[in-house]
């Protein structure tokens, strides 16, 4: 009886669910209210399914086998690491390639193999007409690459062939640019549906955006700005000489890579920008301009971009690097055009009085309304600007600025409820068992033993500490007690020690006072094959774009902040024991740790599976343990200090 009722009810729900989906989104609520005619339970049922439908989107996009095979493979890799790879299915590969099963347009998803070479890992960008994926190149030891292609939607456009042609032209032009400051095009391929795709070098590092102080009291140190701008100008000119215009130059598309004391600029997101803009224009939506308007020249806003438009964009970027704000901050495109026509009203020197007048004049010239009034080449512009910035008679300012920069004690902790912490720690007499030891290393002996079957690079011998600038690495621990046990307690920051319980959550906020590389590794108390288990916490591919490079005074949070605050914590489980979190800073990239960080991808869940790597890591860390760097607690943070070029800090987390 009840089964019959359920079936009827179910059919009713089903009908309404589909009817509501067919209904215009604005009228859906109205429609359902009248269709349910006071049956609140029915209304609730249908509504909750509609909500679930939106959330469920994509959850089952990848089929079960694909999703699980990765985990299974990861398990296998750990349990039988030395088993020689036997691929007895090689003969079947060609007849069972992906292409055969994907007629018409192809939806690329994680696990798809392109050209028998590139394994799609995940989508990293998506625009109206273009899609960008992160992939692994299996011919080059799974090196990360970026793959770009036109979106499927374009397949329907009548002028698709034309777009494809433009895209290819652009790709070939890009491939001709041979400059260290421009991201390299590596390969071009074609999907079975005829779409061309472009394989680009994956550039790790940080974006220029991350070091521009938004609305800051003062902009970037002059010498640094001069150096970076000069490199940008050279790279851009190299592109212009091949006839490639960037068209979407902005701080987000300029990557910085640190090599020792130097910073290298690399321009990314080249080339495809042209096609995208063209495609957008061709699709009839002429009023809409792709990308951010903030860096666009007046002529580009009007649909006539040229290489002078890139110079204009570079002018906006220079203005912003030096003052912390952009020359114009309009709300609409029309307003922006009007402001551009009126010229710069707020002078860079108004915002930063110590800025050389000559530099201001150079920037203003690059921001001329008429393209012909700007510099003839990007390099001319940045060379002039760099000279004006560094030949400034006002060297006093530079000295002051430098000392300011090196004294920045690190970003403030996100949440600091220190009174609460103290109260609680007295009341509950919490055992103070989190302690921190850190080790200064002039030693890298252990690193030499690091060997990886695929990657035999070894770390360079470390210089003995000389008269180096002191580096401080500081961290604060934010704690949220298990909300089931302490429902009303807010999170608090913790410089010192606490005994954690199951369900407690923690996160770290870390910063350093010198440019360099940070690696964070968790060591769990349990052993596998007699060696500790390590888990790579930083960098991971979604945090800092997978790069360990972190500039001075830049704050790193782990776990990476996400849209869901509930997920921004490490949760402690029921297992008792002590975890160790290693905080490693170095002034140069540590190749061996770079090798380990590859384990931080989803298929490994951060766990370093290779026994040789774990052995080497364990030896290295053991070697650092006896020597401790200076340690201090101030303003809710724990600070490690070293004058060496390597610092290894240790944080213990005891949990019962």
């Amino acid at each position, binding site marked *: 009886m009840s089964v019959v009722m359920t079936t009827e009810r179910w059919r009713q729900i089903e009908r309404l669910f589909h009817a509501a989906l067919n209904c215009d989104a604005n009228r859906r609520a109205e429609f359902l209210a009248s269709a349910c005619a006071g049956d609140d339970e029915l209304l609730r049922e249908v509504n909750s399914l509609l909500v679930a439908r939106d959330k469920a989107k994509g959850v089952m996009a990848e089929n079960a086998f694909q999703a699980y095979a990765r985990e299974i*493979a990861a398990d296998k890799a750990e349990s039988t690491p030395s088993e020689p790879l036997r691929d007895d299915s090689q003969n079947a590969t060609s007849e069972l390639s992906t292409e055969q099963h994907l007629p018409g347009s192809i939806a690329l998803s994680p696990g798809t193999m392109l050209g028998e070479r590139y394994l799609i890992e995940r989508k990293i960008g998506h625009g109206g007409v273009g899609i960008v994926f992160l992939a692994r190149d299996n011919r080059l030891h799974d090196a990360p690459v970026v793959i770009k292609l036109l979106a499927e939607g374009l397949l329907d456009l009548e002028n698709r062939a034309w777009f494809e042609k433009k895209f290819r032209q652009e790709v070939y032009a890009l491939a001709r640019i041979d400059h260290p400051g421009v991201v390299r095009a590596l390969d071009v391929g074609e999907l079975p549906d005829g779409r061309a795709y472009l394989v680009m070098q994956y550039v790790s590092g940080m974006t220029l955006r991350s070091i521009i102080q938004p609305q800051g009291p003062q902009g970037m140190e002059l010498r640094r700005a001069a150096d970076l701008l000069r490199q940008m100008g050279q790279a851009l000119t190299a592109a212009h000489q091949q006839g490639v215009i960037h068209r979407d130059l902005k701080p987000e598309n300029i990557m910085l890579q640190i090599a020792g004391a130097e910073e290298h600029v690399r321009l990314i997101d080249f080339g495809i920008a042209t096609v995208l803009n063209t495609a957008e224009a061709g699709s009839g939506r002429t009023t809409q301009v792709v990308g951010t308007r903030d860096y666009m020249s007046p002529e580009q806003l009007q649909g006539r971009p040229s290489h002078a438009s890139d110079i204009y964009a570079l002018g906006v970027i220079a203005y912003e690097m030096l003052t912390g704000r952009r020359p114009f901050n309009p709300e609409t495109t029309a307003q922006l055009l009007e402001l551009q026509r009126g010229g710069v009203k707020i002078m860079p020197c108004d915002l930063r009085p110590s800025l050389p007048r000559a530099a201001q004049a150079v920037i203003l010239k690059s921001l001329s309304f008429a393209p012909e009034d700007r510099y003839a080449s990007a390099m001319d512009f940045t060379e002039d600007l760099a000279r004006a910035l560094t030949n400034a008679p006002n060297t006093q300012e530079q000295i002051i600025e430098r000392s300011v920069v090196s004294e920045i004690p690190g970003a403030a902790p996100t949440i600091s409820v220190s009174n609460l912490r103290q109260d609680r720690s007295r009341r509950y007499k919490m055992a103070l068992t989190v302690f921190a030891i850190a080790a200064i290393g002039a030693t890298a002996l252990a690193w030499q033993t690091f060997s990886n079957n695929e990657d035999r690079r070894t770390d360079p011998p470390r210089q003995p500490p000389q008269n180096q600038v002191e580096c401080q690495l500081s961290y604060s621990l934010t704690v949220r007690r298990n909300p089931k046990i302490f429902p009303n307690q807010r999170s608090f920051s913790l410089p010192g020690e606490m005994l954690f319980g199951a369900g407690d959550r923690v996160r770290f906020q870390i910063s350093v006072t010198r440019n360099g590389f940070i690696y964070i590794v968790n060591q769990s108390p349990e052993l596998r094959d007699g060696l500790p288990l390590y888990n790579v916490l930083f960098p991971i591919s979604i945090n800092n774009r997978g790069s360990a490079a972190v500039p001075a005074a830049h704050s790193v949070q782990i776990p990476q902040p996400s849209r869901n605050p509930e997920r921004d914590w490490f949760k402690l489980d029921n297992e008792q024991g002590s975890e160790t979190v290693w905080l490693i800073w170095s002034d140069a990239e540590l190749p061996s740790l770079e090798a380990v960080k590859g384990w931080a991808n989803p298929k490994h869940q951060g766990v370093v599976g290779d026994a040789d790597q774990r052995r080497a890591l364990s030896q290295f860390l053991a070697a650092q343990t006896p020597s401790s760097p200076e340690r201090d607690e101030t303003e809710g943070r724990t600070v490690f200090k070293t004058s060496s070029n390597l610092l290894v800090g240790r944080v213990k987390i005891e949990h019962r």
Partner: protein
Amino acid sequence: MATSSTHEVTQLLLAWSQGDEAALDRLIPLVHRELHHLAKRYMRRERAGHTLQTTALVNEAYLHLVDCGNVQWRNRAHFFAVAARVMRQILVDYARGRRSDKRGGQELHVALDEAAEVPQARSVDLIALDDALQSLARIDLRKSRVVEMRFFAGLTLEEIAEVFKVSSRTVSRDWELAQAWLYREMSNR
């Protein structure tokens, strides 16, 4: 022997498609053996960096197991329907085994599930999905089978439509509602 088992599977498939439900019980272990073997082999390919396509796997099993000259297209769809059920068994069993391994001490002390991009990679908890599918089967058997075929065996809407002899639009609607229902069910657990 390969030929006799090919013949056997083909006969069972024909019998089942003509309404002999008992044939299915004898069919499943045969398909299971083949798929399990193939799945293991495919995993090695995954390690070698090859792509993984469930449809490819099921196709390969079909080519191995079924005497294609004697089978019509419709029976191919039937084979896929069986394969879907078997794949579900294999993968859910695997997920269970994996979970109990972890309870046996392999779980990290700090459950760093928030750290890496794990949620993206492990998009669906297969064990929870299996339970939810059983509940769905009690309300709407066809929808649960549609999910089984699409999610566990990678069948296209058209292939599924062929099995149920309905339009692919109907299958598409089934798939849409089933996903929403399952998602809600799993998040309410």
